[in-house]
Structure formats: C-alpha cells, structure tokens
C-alpha cells in the first residue's frame, strides 16, 4: 500500500513546517501521522517531540524559518496553548508564520480559534489528503 495519499503528492514541495506537541499531552501518534503525511507530500518537516512550551515552539519556528506551525493537542488545553503560541510569534516579529491546529477540538471552538488567527483546524475524521490540500491552499 502506498504511504502517500497520491493526489496530495508533491503539493507541499519546498514548504517547511514545524509539527509540535505543546503542553503535557502525550498522545503523539496523530502528530506523527500528520508529520509523515506532510513529508510524503514534499514538505520538510521538523517534529519537536513531546512537552514543548509555546515559547520553545515559536523559537524553533523562527530559527528554522518555517512557513507554518502545526500544533497537536488532545487534552482540551488548545485554546490557552494556541493563544500563547500566537502571542509568542508576535513577540518574535514572526506573525507571518501560519498556525494550524489538530487534535480533539470541539466544533464549538473552531470560530474562536479562527478569530485568534488560526488558519486551519483539523480533526481525525478528515482524510490526510484533505489536510494536505488545505495546507497547500493556505501556504501558497
């Protein structure tokens, strides 16, 4: 079986993306699956590993000059953590880095996250091809 959603192949060629696990949530398989899918779609992916502070993630994003940061949160702390990351990116004069969120995110929170500046929210019922295509649209 192919490990690349075929219609998504090469859509993210040349893009650099940080995939990060902020806070204490240790459920990392979603983040890793997304990281593998983005890499298979041509992106250069930097995966942070677990338990990173928003400050650390923002610093990595700036140092690596990435196009986007994808946060994965399943513990219900996404609102606080997203806000902290966006503030930190602003503080580092890097508000142009686009932020995406995935995990256990209740639909009721989508609008609030969008209003904070999140460019896309992804949940487990979406296909990887949809996620890659959506990211590709946002990053061009």
């Amino acid at each position: 079986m192919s490990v690349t959603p075929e219609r998504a192949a090469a859509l993210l060629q040349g893009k650099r993306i940080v995939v990060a696990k902020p806070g204490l949530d240790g459920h990392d398989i979603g983040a890793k699956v997304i990281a593998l899918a983005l890499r298979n779609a041509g992106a250069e992916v930097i995966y942070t590993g677990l338990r990173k502070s928003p400050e650390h993630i923002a610093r990595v994003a700036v140092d690596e000059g990435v196009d986007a940061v994808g946060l994965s949160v399943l513990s219900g702390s996404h609102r606080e953590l997203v806000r902290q990351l966006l503030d930190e990116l602003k503080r580092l004069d890097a508000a142009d880095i686009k932020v995406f969120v995935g995990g256990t995110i209740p639909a009721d929170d989508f609008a609030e996250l969008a209003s904070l500046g999140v460019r896309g929210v992804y949940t487990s019922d979406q296909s990887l091809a949809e996620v890659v295509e959506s990211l590709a649209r946002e990053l061009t």
Partner: protein
Amino acid sequence: MNAPESRRLASPQLTQISAAGIDVPVKAGAEAVDPYRIGEPGAYPFTRGIFPDGFRGRLWTIRQYSGFGTAEESNERYRFLLDQGQTGLSVALDLPTQCGYDPIDPIARPEIGKVGVSLSNLGEAEVLFNGLDLAAISTSFTINGTAAIIYAMYLAVADKRGVPRAKLTGTIQNDILKEYVARGTWIFPVRPSMRLIADTILFSNDATPRFNPISIAGAHVRDAGATAAEEMAYTLANGLAYVEELRRRGGDVEKFAKRLSFFFYVHMDFFDEVAKFRAGRRLWAQLMKERYGVSDPKAQHFRFGVVCGGSSLVAAQPYNNIVRVAVETMAAVMGGAQSIFTCAFDEAFQIPTEFSAEIAVRTQQMIAYESGIARSVDPLGGSYFVEHHTDRMQESIEGVMREIDDYGGVIKAIEDGWLQMRLAERALERKLRIDSGETVVVGQNHFRRDDQRNEIGEVFHLDPTVAGRVLEKYQRVRDTRSAVAVDASLARLAQAAANDGENLMPYLIDCCHAYATVGEMVATLKKEWGEFQEPVRL
C-alpha cells in the same frame, strides 16, 4: 469537510482479512480443534479462562474511568457512579499529576483538572476519597510516571483513616514501558523507572497483598495504531521485561507473578478480540510455566481489564457508538475479562456527561444480566472457527515478539525509538486504509450523511474556576504544613534514591504524610536520576 472520496453509495464488500491481518477461512472444520491445546476452563493453559466457573462465580468488575476538575467534583461523581451500581472506582488524574508537575508550574497551568483530577498532595487525596469506604471499594489509578507516589498517597490516606493496608484492593497502572512508546507521561530514564516499578511491586506484595501494583497495558499502543496481535505482543514483551527486572532484584516469580495484571482495548473486529484474549492468556501461562518454571496456577493466571471504545469511537453520528461499545463489551465478556470499562458515546469529543456515562454502565448491566452470554464459561470454546482463529492469533503474536527479541529486546527498542517509529508507520497505514474506504467506518467513510452535524445533545463544560480553586488549595497546604518535616522527608528520599538497593516506597509514604507535593518528590528524584530523553525519530 467532505471530500468526494468519502461519499460512497455502493455497499462495501466483506473482506477475508481480519483487522489484525489474519486470513479468515469462509468455513473452518473439525480439523481446526485440538482438545489438548484448548484444555478446560480454570486449567492450564487457560485458553478457556482462569476460573472453572467463569462469571458464575464472580461477575467482572464494572469500572468506569472517571475524574475531572477538583477533588471535590470528582468525589461527587464517584458517589454518583457507585450509586448507579458501579463496583469499582477508576481514578483519572490530570496531566500535571501524571507528569509530576505541581499546579503552579507554568507548564501545568493550562492543563489543571482537564483530563482528570488534580491530585498534588495528601490533602487533595483526603478530599477525593472522603466518605468512601477504602476497605470495601477497589480503586484503580491510571497512573504511570508518578505511580509510586500516588500509590504512596493512597496508603497514606488509608493510614490516616485507620484502614489496615492489607485490606486495600485496587490497581495502579504503573507500566512505564508503554508510556515511552505511546502515551507519553514518562519522567525518568528507562532504567531508574524500572527500579521504581520493581520497588512498588515488591513492597506491595507484602504490604498490600490484595492490591495489583501493575497493570501492564497494551491499550495505548493499540489506540495509537497497533493491531490486536501487536497490542498483545508488545504487552507480553513488556510483561517479561518487568519479570526480568523483578528477578534481578531478588523477587520470587511464584509470588510476584500472582499480582501482575494486564489491560487492553477492545476494538470492533469481534473474533480478533476474542481470539486475542484467549491466545494471550494461553501464551502467558505457557511462558510462566515453561520459561520460569512457575508451578502455582495463580502465578500463571493472565488477569486483565479492558476498555471498550477508545479510538474505535467515531465522531460522525455519535449515537452509533453505543452500539459499537455494546459489541465490544460482548467480545470482552467472551474473551473472559476481569474488569470492563465501557466508554460513553460522546467520549470521542469530551468528558462524558452523567447522561452518557449512565448509558455506558447500563450497557454492561444489560449484557451481564439480560443477554445471558455470561452464564456459561467460554461459550465459544471448541468452536471450529474460534479455535482456528485463536491459534492463528497466537502465531501472529509470537511472530511480533520474535521481531522485538531479534532487535535486541523491548528496552533497547524503546530507547532507540524503533518501536515508536514502527507504531507511527502502522498508524499511518491504518489512517490511509480508512481514508481510502478499505476499512469501513459506518457513518464516516461509508453510509455517511453530509447533511448532518455531529449532534451529541448535552455538552460537558468544565467549570472555569477549577484552576483557580486548585491553586488556592495548593497554596493553603503549602502555608499550613511543617516545612521542616517536608524538607527532612525529601532529604531522606534523595538519599535512598542514590542507593540502588533501597526500596523507595517507605520514603515516599513518609513524604506524603508530611504533605510534600508530587512536584517536590519528582523534582527530588529527577536530581538523582535525570529525565528521559525522548528519541525523536521520524
């Protein structure tokens, strides 16, 4: 949200490969059954269950995972669940407690009370168990990195209440190996963590002989992407690693093996699940007898609890999850589980409401008392197909265990990140099979209605004042306890931690009695042992 690929009009075909990758014959015959290999219920090799009378002697424990917010709110939910006929408590702890941070730590703040109750010191534990009879209920804690500390805290509560330690029943999960692979609440490096686990088991065998000091868990690797066979294989491999560590520490396998217990997920492929439990139970008994010469049947017993639901729950059309959980519960009963946790149908989204939590308990009660499937022990035993499938499952499990051995054992596989990488690849495959529609998920990738929102009725809202109240109580304990007693108990803990042969449990219990906090005890141990360095391999 809905790509054209996920709208399917034609009904999918039934495949001949099970979810675990086992080729399923359309018809199995008498040649599939070897009576010697199957044995009798309650007799070696225990394919048909560890008790001769199955559930007739004793029903499985109905044990719902629960806990959120403050100790006061969780205590109230526990009383509600016990009033509904639940027979054991299962305590969910918040992430700061699980990872060893006090609530005031900046990394802890956003997580206080979110996925479980905040339990930073003995004062909180006293509130959590207020009014509950510790000698009568069995309490299970899903706790790993800080398991020794939470166990010490439970003993300290019992001490203060005058409940003899020997009367306590319950379980701490205390399985750190799978945390490195899938669940992520590790704290210390692998080797000192193994020592801490051996300390708890050896201490518990004497002090709390009715308590399960470990529940070796496959559930989390399963939810992360492992197949049923891999779930069982990783769990047995981890179990053997603990057995080796305990023997190295001078433990007697005939004694400690009696208190080892196991924990799994049940997903939707019914016969995979039944076969997984029957095969795992047989294989463990064989390993104990043949590899370690264990002769006491109780030390060959493979006792396990399960969760029905988890990642097999689907966000689309959430009421369908009630049916999924019922099917999975039947598989757990047919597989001979000792305790069952049924997820609530809305658990794919949120902490269950009282409404959904009650349906989950009722599901077990209907299966136990209305369906009649629990009357006869191992009613599927001797079925041509089930015995055939159990044998194939066992071969599959043994194959995965051999691969781990060939790599150099489970500890090396974890320290190198090999197992983690393997699991991530498996998860990607599983996701792509769902995306392509090859794996059918009703209501999501097949038989989907695009005009529906995922309505779940009542929504659970965590009280926004939780964090504030937790911090206030934490400060009050810090202000009123004896700083001298705390410092002295922590200093003795540090000294004991530096000496490999010392059992840390008595020192941790002393710290708890002095109202030292989880964060303080963990910081003390980190100073001696350092922290796990996650191998980030992708």
